[in-house]
């Protein structure tokens, strides 16, 4: 028992793991908070769509030799606004709008990769994340952006709850639902870009969807769902990172796998209850 604890302490104290845990926990908090609103608004696939967009923006960043996050955040945010606009103005359903923007971005990314004479190692590492190799810059940016996301969600909690439950009634209450939808899009864009470092473009949507759907198996209140979703998200990210080191698995898929196991446990708990 003591040996296991000592091993855990040793792992946590390693600087590269500490950085991974800090970024991972911040992404877990942001994505689980936003996930509750997005899943219940039936907008959860926006995470997957924006991750595809990120893939394209990373290709652009690598081609022009800029740190990807600087290119990804503005372009992914613009894409999320474009999805909203297509949905609002062109009467294209949200899932179709996400599909259009996402597939166009991936195609652009692949074409840029071809122009750059094939994908290099950096680009493929973004597919499944590389949280154990985060730089100091990644950590600082993640801390700043995640804190912005978390405080905005907490500050607008009741307005976002109203928007999620009944958009028409929210308008009657005088809430600026258009602005709230754009804020939600901005926050999810930031979270997706940071989260790609943790689990990669292929799996980032799972960080948005899994904790909420898992929490929904046992909760009856909105606040309660936010709290359980947060706990599930943090538990899966922390245990995923640590167990991936112990078992020598890739961290991104390990985190998602643990999320899957937690969902199964909660689902059966609901059946028993």
């Amino acid at each position: 028992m003591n040996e296991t604890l000592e091993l855990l302490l040793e792992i946590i104290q390693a600087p590269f793991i500490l950085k991974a845990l800090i970024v991972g926990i911040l992404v877990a908090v942001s994505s689980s908070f936003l996930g509750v609103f997005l899943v219940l608004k039936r907008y959860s696939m926006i995470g997957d769509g924006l991750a595809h967009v990120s893939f394209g923006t990373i290709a652009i960043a690598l081609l022009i030799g800029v740190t990807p996050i600087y290119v990804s955040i503005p372009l992914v945010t613009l894409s999320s606004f474009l999805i909203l606009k297509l949905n609002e103005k062109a009467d294209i359903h949200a899932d179709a709008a996400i599909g259009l923007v996402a597939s166009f971005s991936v195609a652009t990314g692949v074409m840029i990769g071809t122009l750059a004479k094939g994908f290099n190692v950096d680009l493929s590492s973004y597919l499944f994340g590389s949280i154990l190799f985060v730089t100091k810059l990644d950590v600082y940016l993640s801390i700043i952006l995640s804190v912005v996301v978390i405080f905005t969600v907490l500050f607008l909690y009741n307005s976002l709850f109203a928007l999620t439950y009944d958009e028409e009634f929210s308008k009657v209450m005088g809430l600026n639902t258009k602005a709230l939808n754009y804020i939600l899009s901005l926050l999810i864009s930031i979270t997706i870009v940071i989260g790609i470092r943790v689990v990669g473009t292929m799996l980032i949507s799972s960080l948005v969807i899994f904790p909420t759907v898992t929490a929904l198996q046992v909760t009856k209140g909105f606040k309660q769902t936010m709290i359980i979703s947060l706990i599930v998200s943090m538990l899966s990210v922390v245990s995923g990172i640590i167990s991936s080191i112990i078992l020598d698995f890739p961290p991104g898929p390990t985190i998602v796998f643990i999320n899957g196991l937690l969902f199964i446990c909660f689902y059966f708990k609901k059946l028993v209850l």
Partner: protein
Amino acid sequence: MNKVLTVKNLSVKYGRYEVLKNINFEVLLGDYISIIGPNGAGKSSLVKAILGLIKPCQGEIMLENPVIGYLPQKTYTNDKAFPATVKEIISLGLLGTKKHPKIVNASDKEKIDITLKKLKITELKNRKIGSLSGGEQQRVLLARAIVNNPSILILDEPTSALDPEFKKEFNDIIHKLNTIDKVTILLITHDNSSIKQHSNKIMYVNREIIYYGLRENFSMIQEEGNHE
């Protein structure tokens, strides 16, 4: 009598189609107005314009008190999985008059408790909204609409999905709100019994106002029409 709502020269268009033209009327404090008319006559568009949900192409809407209660036609009963308790749903009705971060405080919780008691649904307070029956959900949404003590309560066919027993109970609740709490009621309905029993005025809309006045006079016009 105090005017609570004045509508002047209101017109609403969807694209090129003018669904409402040149609507003028006044609502007095304590009125119970049944808004009737055929399907597609613009009744829902009229209340949506008053609520600020759609922009009229011309005209003015003046409210004496901006706090309006609203019970929509379409409720969200289908999503049984939506995680929200009854008290959380009712608290949303308080957000309109609050500044960000719109925190629900102790006095708000008291208001919620009073509303729950008034509608006799205190025992549902901690239940999940999706686990309630249609009638119970409708009462909860009515509680959300009245928790902030609105001057006007606007209801869009609130009893259309309810069984007859619940329909009567629901109509009685609205009647009490009107007579005891002096809430002005604007009700879109096809329910003749509710129109006859409770409303003091009728507004017949068919893209324009065909009739607006006392209920008794409307019945007389109808009877004369039948004799002719």
